[in-house]
């Protein structure tokens, strides 16, 4: 398993952003769905080793990120696209991707070819020498995806990767995801249910810091059948049905009945 989380929590003050999440994931594309404030970004930041958990156990790529050496090894094999991508406006696309390739400790001799491959993969070949400040939001997002995949990561964490992409780009991006998911674990946090249906083999739905559903897109669709839940598409109806069920039970229990928040959860 590339991701092993056991009763993971993250607290900010008295609020639990992540309240006892347990999950496992191997190679494949893993969708992380949920409303705003569900804890998706905090969970992703913990898996990106940017944010330490408050409690619980986490193993990534078979290593403990709490120790310096293993954490560095994880980071060499990690790709991460944060929700708010910062960039140097004066860098070109190729320079931006190269910068992170170097910070990922890639062997310098491999960097130019890896940069070219990543830039081509996201369809920015004709903009490789363009300054980032001249790019549209969707192009910047693709540059962010390029830096995430430049090291051919074994664990790829993408926070709202399709935000700002037009429909054609989203279709192309899902194809990239499916390709990457054949050999790596790809976790995609998104609001867009159709992205999950098209690209993900497994999906988790978070609400109020907890995983309230963990299964395949087909199983999520099944939850919505005959439930009368709102939604234009089968996956949306499943999403709505699971959320409605989760919110109708006491706060210490999840809809699936398998996740529990800590006693102090507020």
């Amino acid at each position, binding site marked *: 398993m590339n991701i092993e989380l056991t009763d*993971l929590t993250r607290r900010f003050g008295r609020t639990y952003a992540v309240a006892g999440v347990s999950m496992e994931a191997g190679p494949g594309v893993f969708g992380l769905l949920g409303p705003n404030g569900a804890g998706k970004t905090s969970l992703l930041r913990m898996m*990106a*080793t*940017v*944010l*330490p*958990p*408050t*409690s*619980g*156990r*986490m*193993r990534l790529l078979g290593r*403990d*990120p*709490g*120790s*310096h050496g293993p*954490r*560095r090894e994880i*980071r*060499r094999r*990690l790709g*991460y696209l*944060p929700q*708010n*991508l*910062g*960039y*140097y406006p004066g860098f070109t696309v*190729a*320079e931006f991707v*190269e*910068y*992170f390739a*170097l*910070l*990922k*400790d890639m062997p*310098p001799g491999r960097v*130019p*070819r890896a*940069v*070219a*491959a990543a*830039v*081509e993969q996201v369809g920015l*070949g004709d903009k*490789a*020498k363009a300054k980032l400040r001249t790019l549209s939001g969707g192009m910047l997002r693709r540059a962010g995806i390029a*830096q995430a995949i430049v090291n051919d990561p074994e664990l790829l964490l993408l926070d709202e990767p399709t935000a700002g992409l037009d429909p054609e780009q989203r279709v192309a991006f899902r194809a990239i995801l499916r390709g990457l998911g054949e050999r790596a674990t790809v976790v995609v946090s998104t609001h867009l249910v159709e992205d999950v249906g098209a690209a993900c083999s497994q999906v988790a739905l978070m609400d109020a810091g907890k995983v309230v559903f963990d299964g395949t897109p087909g199983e999520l669709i099944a939850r919505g059948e005959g439930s009368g839940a709102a939604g234009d598409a089968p996956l949306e109806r499943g999403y709505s049905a699971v959320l409605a069920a989760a919110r109708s039970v006491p706060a210490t229990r999840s809809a699936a009945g398998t996740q529990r928040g800590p006693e102090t959860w507020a």
Partner: protein
Amino acid sequence: MTGEGMDWTGSGSPSDVDLGRVWTGVAAEVWRRRPGPAERLAARLLRSPGLARALVTTPSLLLGWVIATVVVLAAGAAVTRSTGTPWVALFAPAVAGAGIAYAYGPGIDPTWELSQSMAVSDRMVLLVRALAVFGLNAAAGLVATAASGAAAAVTFGWLVPMTAVCALALAAATVSRSANVGVAAGMSGWAITVMAGQASAGRLTAAITDSSLVLPYLAFAACCGAVAWYATRIPRGAS
């Protein structure tokens, strides 16, 4: 047959060529960035191309900032020559403190969050950038004080206070995660010290020339350095 192992003798057919792979190789050469001499030297000294690249992107080492620093110190040297008051020595610690505070961190470095997930430690990036900013400011300040015709005690006297001001600015910036707070702490700390020196000794330069202050400055710098080190530790968290 792929682009790497192409047979140019004509025995292979063109359809065997992996054009995508060939294009990637061509693009890699066309888009390849040639590092400047400073970056190549830094990569050799630091034994890390990533760290060297992070060093040359330091916000307070970019050309505009360096020019501003030189202008301030040159103006200080000119005023010092005309008034006799060692303004360069009084300005230099504050200028260096501001440079250190603006070396790295959230709000200053746009890629800060992403950099935290990288194999090259962000603490190492901060350390290398801070040392480079300190070195550059020390060199520029020494040239400016020497050019202003100041006495030897004044020419070198501000280096130790500068260390303390830089450490204070760094500690405040890392603890508060705000470069502006770091600059404010460094500048106000130095202003208070200079004014206290004038009040107690009757000389504006007492904070620079009083040798009895060297040890307290160094002790203070060490304490601030420890605070900055602690503030930038990577929390173990639960595992």
